[in-house]
């Protein structure tokens, strides 16, 4: 269930590096923990985000959680469909439920590999 072509954070974001750009989203585990999403708040295109810092919020019926930027860079595209259909994050977190695309400035070294992330969530589940 954990795609092997992505990098992960301990705070449950994923990043897919495609050349100079990266697509960012939250993981299957994160969306399951949150439950039905009702709102996604994202940075605007043109904004600069820094790895480890808050870049937005996802809100479900019972909780609101911050999303932290896995990679530093400038936001080039925002998934505007989530404005009216936040449930796409629940339905397809690694596909149609992507959050933003950024132009990479820096990729931190502490991002997790798929196997490391798998171990991390196994630990959290305990």
């Amino acid at each position, binding site marked *: 269930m954990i795609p092997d072509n992505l990098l992960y954070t301990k705070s449950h974001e994923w990043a897919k590096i495609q050349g100079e750009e990266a697509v960012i989203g939250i993981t299957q585990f994160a969306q399951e923990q949150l439950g039905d999403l009702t709102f996604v708040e994202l940075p605007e295109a043109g904004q600069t985000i820094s790895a480890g810092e808050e870049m937005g919020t996802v809100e479900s019926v019972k909780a*609101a959680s911050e999303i932290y930027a896995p990679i530093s860079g400038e936001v080039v595209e925002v998934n505007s469909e989530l404005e009216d259909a936040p449930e796409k994050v629940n339905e397809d977190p690694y596909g149609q439920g992507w959050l933003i695309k950024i132009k990479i400035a820096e990729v931190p070294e502490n991002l997790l590999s798929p196997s490391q992330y798998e171990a991390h969530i196994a630990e959290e589940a305990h």
Partner: protein
Amino acid sequence: MPYIPHTPDEQQAMLATIGVPDMAALFADIPPELRPKSFDLPQGQSEMSVLSHMEELAARNSTDLTSFLGAGFYDHYNPAAIKALASRGEFFTAYTPYQPEASQGTLQAIFEYQTSICRLLDMEYSNASLYDGGTAIYEAIMMAVRKTRKRTKILVSQGVNPIYRTMLDSYTTNLNLELITVPHNQGQTDVAALMDHLDEDIAAIIVQNPNFFGSANDFTQLFEQARKNGVVSILSVYPVMQSVLKTPGEMGADIAVAEGQSLGLPLSFGGPYLGIMTCTKPLIRQMPGRIVGKTTDVDGKTGYVLTLQAREQHIRRHKATSNICSNQSLCAVCSLMYLALLGPEGLKRTAELSIQQAHYAAERLTSIPGVSLYNKTPFTNEFVLSLPCEASKVINALVDKKFIPGFPLGRYYEGMDNMLLVACTEKTSNQDIGILAELMGGVL
């Protein structure tokens, strides 16, 4: 729920149940130096003697004064029905309505309150109320700071009630925020100066209508300019006057806040009061406190629920949008009753009468030699008099005659010791104004 103190025997039984020998052992975890040395309580007394003591204390207050005090809090007439209805057990409760299945009536009343407030201020959303008008301004700037992210400067007009500005200073002392106060220009909100300050470091701009000196304003252009610069515009208003003035919604404010006391709440020595807060749709997710929504259940029946709760304190705790832990339901419901009893026409008439009386008072008082009107632009039910001596001197002389002629501006504004802020409401009679004019003329 009755309050039943436990007997020494019951205390022993409870201690035994949890396996602690005595009360001292129960509190052993609290270091001795942190424990109260003594509660310093007098011996118990009979109800009759306590009552007579309290009456004696209460009698020291002057309650039979004719007051021209305003400064953000106004002596409007409250229909008797409000007190009678608000005292009903269904409303008169400290219970906060989390569970929709148990509190449809309370939730509906709050929903109706929100609807009335939105209509009065012409705004899209209202929350279920906050503590008071000053708290509402603070919460509004925090909404702006969250919305604009890295901006840390707040532009505040000196025409905003100084009591609220003092609260802002205190609330933001330990935050990474800078309050920039833009001085008033002879009692006018200095719109041009405010416009000059608008740039991309400013998170929010706060103005008041009517301003603290009673002058009515139109901030449409200012708010338009703010929006162009990505600045959140916050307007604090006097709710009764919104029935006759251009509303926050019409001016294009992003957030409108108010002290709700003038809508059916007695002055009662400063509280409890009501913080009114409204905003436009793009800011709804930043709004603190509770919001009641209307929905339908599985059978299609109307139901009322607390909504947008995910950022509320009882769920988010350390990450809640605000640390406001309760709203002012009973006060909000009183305001709803006031608005419902008066209706749009009644509220408008209240505002018009108050304005009319203030203009008559201004005319009478400025006919006293040496007294002039400080306001240069239209004012509503409150205005500033420029006196030939310190305002506090006139106040002290008139209080002995059972009249409070107004609020001395020198208390909050440097160089304004001779300025007196005078307010009227629909309760102010021509006779009161006549006597005030004569008494003031005698002192000056």
